[in-house]
């Protein structure tokens, strides 16, 4: 595996004042075992998250983004390599890394929208019930679902379910937030509003974000750092800096150029 066009070597030391990485994936292979079959989802993927990073995983469908997220969340163990969080290998899931899953069935159907948002706060004993309720109502307001707080998940549309899941994660204000295509089911305006809420909360709390998306634009707007993955099985194609872009930079020429560059990196057949 030859590194070319590398504008800065991978291992280049950062400025002295730079903090230690919060999370490191070191040459991670992820595999699914299923009956007698074994499917490799990622191959030798390495990356580092620093505190307050908004780190985006970008790649084609089926390249292993969700799998990587599940591994960081502690639901899967690497078949090779390791994932280190705060100096210790990830052993299992925990409320320090709150996940928004890609699937629509992540909400317990027996809890109302409000109870769903309160659930992790109460279950992980972050807040007591009354405070949890207040925080939950606040977050529901942010995702525009205050009116549906007493509805059950099966009474919501796909996009509404995902917004509940987002509210639930935001309410936790976790140290690390892992989001798997959270806005995929949302219309342009709602998606925009969610991006704004997410970034505003980040600006306030400065959590570390690991964000999966399939939209190049979203990656650039939401993230300060983007990891590009190759098609199945996912390998690291590039890691790019997007610190300069934000919610307002949509139309700018630099933005368009970078988007174009990412597009070609992602989708041109590697030789």
């Amino acid at each position: 595996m030859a590194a070319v066009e590398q504008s800065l070597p991978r291992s280049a030391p950062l400025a002295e004042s730079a903090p230690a990485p919060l999370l490191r994936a070191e040459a991670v292979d992820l595999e699914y075992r299923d009956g007698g079959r074994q499917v490799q989802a990622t191959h030798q993927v390495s990356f580092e998250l620093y505190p307050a990073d908004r780190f985006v995983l970008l790649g084609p469908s089926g390249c292993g983004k969700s799998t990587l997220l599940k591994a960081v969340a502690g639901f899967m163990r690497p078949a090779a390599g390791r994932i280190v969080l705060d100096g210790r290998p990830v052993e299992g899931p925990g409320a320090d890394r709150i996940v928004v899953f890609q699937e629509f069935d992540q909400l317990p159907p027996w809890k109302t929208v409000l109870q769903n948002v309160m659930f992790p706060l109460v279950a992980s004993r972050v807040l007591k019930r009354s405070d949890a309720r207040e925080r939950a109502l606040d977050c529901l307001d942010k995702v525009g679902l205050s009116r549906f707080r007493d509805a059950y998940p099966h009474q919501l549309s796909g996009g509404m379910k995902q917004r509940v899941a987002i509210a639930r994660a935001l309410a936790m204000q976790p140290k690390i937030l892992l989001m798997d295509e959270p806005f995929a089911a949302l219309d342009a305006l709602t998606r925009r509003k969610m991006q704004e809420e997410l970034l505003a909360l980040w600006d306030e709390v400065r959590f570390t974000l690991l964000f999966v998306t399939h939209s190049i634009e979203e990656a650039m707007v939401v993230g300060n750092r983007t990891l590009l993955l190759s098609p199945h099985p996912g390998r690291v194609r590039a890691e790019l800096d997007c610190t300069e872009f934000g919610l307002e930079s949509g139309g700018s020429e630099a933005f368009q150029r970078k988007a174009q560059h990412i597009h070609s990196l992602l989708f041109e057949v590697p030789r």
Partner: protein
Amino acid sequence: MKTTPPIRGEYEYTLEPLPERRQVRVLDWRARLGEQGWLRKLLIVALLVLGWELIARHFANPLLLPSASDTLTAVTGGLASGELPVRVWGSLAVLLKGYAIGIVLALALTSLAVMTRFGRDLLSTLTSMFSPLPAIALLPIALLWFGLGEGSLIFVLVHSVLWPMALNVFTGFQSVSPTLKMAGRNYGLRGPRLVAHILIPAALPSIFSGLRIGWAFSWRTLIAAEMVFGASSGQGGLGWYIYQNRNELITDNVFAGLAMVIVIGLLVENLLFDNLERLTVRRWGMSAEQH
């Protein structure tokens, strides 16, 4: 020639705000009553009773198969004399104990089974070994450990509730959506808390069918077992009542006793289980109300 859709003009509307009250409306009471289905079920029961009456008259063998009307007379008599209520209560008190213990054990065993691999093997092995064993297989153990009377009855009841309940609960646990389980584990739930907060509610449909089956089989078992462990004379519950009247060929009373079992079954089904389901899995969209 390929079909081409016509080009039409565009149009836009300016929308007035809708009156808020239009959007959520409560169904009127008649519509809700229609949903209950009480009447339809009563009709079915009435048809079954009619069928029974006809079959009984056809065979005209009241010592073997009394008619519905004779049985009704016997039930009325038994209720009036106070004997049936006492018997029913005698059985019910034991049954509920055995049922409750069976359920708790089933939950414990299945919780162990979802948490550990050993637990899973244990559950599977115990169930496949003990579940097909008839109560007489337990008789010696019951006699030696618990002696005559309630202890042994409960032991046998637990045997009849535990295994089907455990099978159903475990099946329910295994069918829980992986995403949901991951969500629970994500919030730090593990072991018993994961079971209590995620697996049990998510498996409720299967748990309910386990509860129903356990309920039914505990009645069957109790009635059979009371004849074996049937408390010292004069006491004993419905099973004993049935057994004794059967021995004395007072078949009306036998059927009166059985009718009580049916009535209790209908009540428990319609007042308890159905409402439990309505308040939980149906309300939560976890079980289709209709197809």
